[in-house]
């Protein structure tokens, strides 16, 4: 079972650029974007690009990985509270997962998420890395 091209391509604005929807009525940001705002039931949204900066709200270290993620094990997956106030789930990489702490500042980075075997599509998306203040 793989990720077929259309399904992957459709999510490019979210996966490549972290584009979210901001409700024009109440200002709530939704990631991914929605057709109707669950808060105020508004139906008009503006596209906003998340800054990519946030702090680690919670995380775990995956030691038994699903198919396709084995080469990265053990890897951290966490929920990041973005500076915009919303939460996003993603891997935290370029670090020793055991040294991560809740509250660490992180920043998003474009990385390879998966691939469909040796000859199939390569799937790109966002992951987070510790914000080293470089």
């Amino acid at each position: 079972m793989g990720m077929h091209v259309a399904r992957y391509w459709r999510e490019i604005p979210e996966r490549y650029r972290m584009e979210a929807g901001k409700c024009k009525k109440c200002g709530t940001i939704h990631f991914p974007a929605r057709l109707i705002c669950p808060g105020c039931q508004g139906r008009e949204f503006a596209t906003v690009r998340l800054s990519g900066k946030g702090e680690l709200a919670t995380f775990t270290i995956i030691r038994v990985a699903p198919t396709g993620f084995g080469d990265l094990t053990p890897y951290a997956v966490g929920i990041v509270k973005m500076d915009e106030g919303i939460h996003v789930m993603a891997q935290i990489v370029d670090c020793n997962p055991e040294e991560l702490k809740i509250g660490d500042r992180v920043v998003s980075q474009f990385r390879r998420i998966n691939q469909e075997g040796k000859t199939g599509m390569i799937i790109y998306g966002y992951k987070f890395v510790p914000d080293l203040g470089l």
Partner: protein
Amino acid sequence: MIGIVGYGSHIPRYRIRVEEIAKVWGADAPSYKKGLGLNEKSVPAPDEDCATLAVNASRNALRRANIDPKQIGAVYVGSESHPYAVKPTGTIVSEALGACPFVHTADLEFACKAGTEGMFIALHLVKSAVVQYALAVGADTSQGAPGDALEFSAAAGAAAFIMGSKNLAAELLDTHCYMTDTPDFWRREHAYYPEHGGRFTGKPAYEKHLFSATAGMLEKAKLKPEDISYVIFHQPNGKFPVNAAQKLGFKEPQYKLGLLCPTLGNTYSGSSPMGLAATLDAAEPDRLILLVSYGSGAGSDAFVFRTTKKLLEIRDLAPKTRKQLDEHKQYIEYGTYAKFRRKILRPE
């Protein structure tokens, strides 16, 4: 006037020392270190590739350029490790930056020179006023065959340059190119690792093209080595560029800033472009920079830039190259390296 409006680089976090690789193959580490002028190299994580490095370097360039990505009219990605044999890396980079859809893109390949190839095209495209801004990236996650000399140096990194005609951080004075058909290093389509001509890669290849391009560039621009404050040559190891500099009349203070190879390795299409990025991070304004690349096959692109005061305003806006190179390194041993570089694979 045309030149560099923004620049950026990206280096993976992982490193492997020469000793680690030498240990596995029974090679004498001290003599390799001395002979190659190399101590350690960067290693891309399994989730990094030419496209991810290119995007991250380009985003840093965009931070310094401070322009709307939609104004970028052309994107050129040079690499010898494009993720797909057929499907452009350029469109991935363009989408990730937000430059689509009114953008021209092309993927380039010319061994280690593909990055500066893109820079040449980007600069002259801006000069012709066909586009307002053009992005050129050199990005590689190249491979060295297990046990081969190249395994000690084949590394990963990227540098990106946004070229424009106003608010320049570095103005272009002129360019010069020198190409011949010289088969010193190549990779056939379905081969996993490249092959090379051993000692043939020295004099008839690297030296001949780099030296001719340098001489030709200086003559064209009516300059002498003493006029150049900073020189960056292609760096396949720590020895070649230093020997070249000495033979061509340049001294250590001139090539110091741009010499990254001893702790970075050979980042192929990223090699001299990253040296340029590191130089721009620390150069004084109103100084001349000479950049000469080398790509096997073979050829060299030469550029002379003059730094401006604007450079000082923009260089703190994104991570500096030396900082990425020297800080927060994560060392790995050969087994992890082999896994990361897919030299050993799980069965599908």
